[in-house]
């Protein structure tokens, strides 16, 4: 078993990276690997509660993050500095996460076999 980490750094809308990253995560979850997700920089916006994308005519895919548990993907990490810089706290997020400092995040990344950044 290998350790796969998916690093999400981009906002949920504006580009397709965040959505297509989630598609890889869902597939990786079926391969019996150790999968974790990291959200930092504008990627923290992907997890913000109460998203409404109607006005831009793009599907709000954020409920899918709630489905991750059903795929046994339960390791979600969010960088504290990225939340702070955007005036967000854990309470603004739509799924349970573990909040880590940059330094802790770096340690966690160093343990991985495969890091994919989207």
């Amino acid at each position, binding site marked *: 078993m*290998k350790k*796969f980490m998916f690093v999400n750094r981009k906002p949920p809308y504006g580009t*397709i*990276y965040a959505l*297509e990253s989630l*598609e*890889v995560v869902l*597939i*990786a979850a*079926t*391969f019996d*690997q150790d999968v974790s997700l990291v959200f930092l920089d504008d990627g923290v916006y992907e997890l913000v509660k109460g998203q409404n994308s109607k006005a831009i005519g793009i599907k709000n895919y954020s409920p899918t993050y709630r489905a991750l548990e059903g795929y046994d993907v339960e390791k979600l990490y969010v960088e504290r500095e990225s939340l702070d810089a955007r005036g967000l706290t854990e309470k603004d997020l739509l799924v349970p996460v573990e909040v880590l400092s940059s330094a802790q995040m770096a340690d966690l990344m160093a343990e991985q*076999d*495969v890091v*994919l*950044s*989207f």
Partner: protein
Amino acid sequence: MKFGLLVSEGPYTHQASDTAYQFAVAAVAKGHEIQRVFFYHDGVYNATKLTEPPQDDRHIVNRWSALAAEHKVDLVVCVAAALRRGIKDEVLAPGFRISGLGQLVDSGIKADRLVTFGD
């Protein structure tokens, strides 16, 4: 060493695909193996044979096809990303095949290193 590559940007717009190609050529020249190149996001546009760059420019698509022919490199285009962008079997250049995201995960499992090219 066995390398898997991920190309996640389109050709010409972004240097990612050039850098990935140059990495692949250099790795093979040093005796390493390129286990697979996986094309995702706009990277799927690397696979269309309809590509016709100006004559004094490099032909990115043909370059990948030549690499596949010479070194048996597996060029895989993500089916979901491809269908979204109008890339289908009938427009694939030689050496490319369309398959699922599982091939990217498989590359992560089987290769010694999975190297990504994109933003």
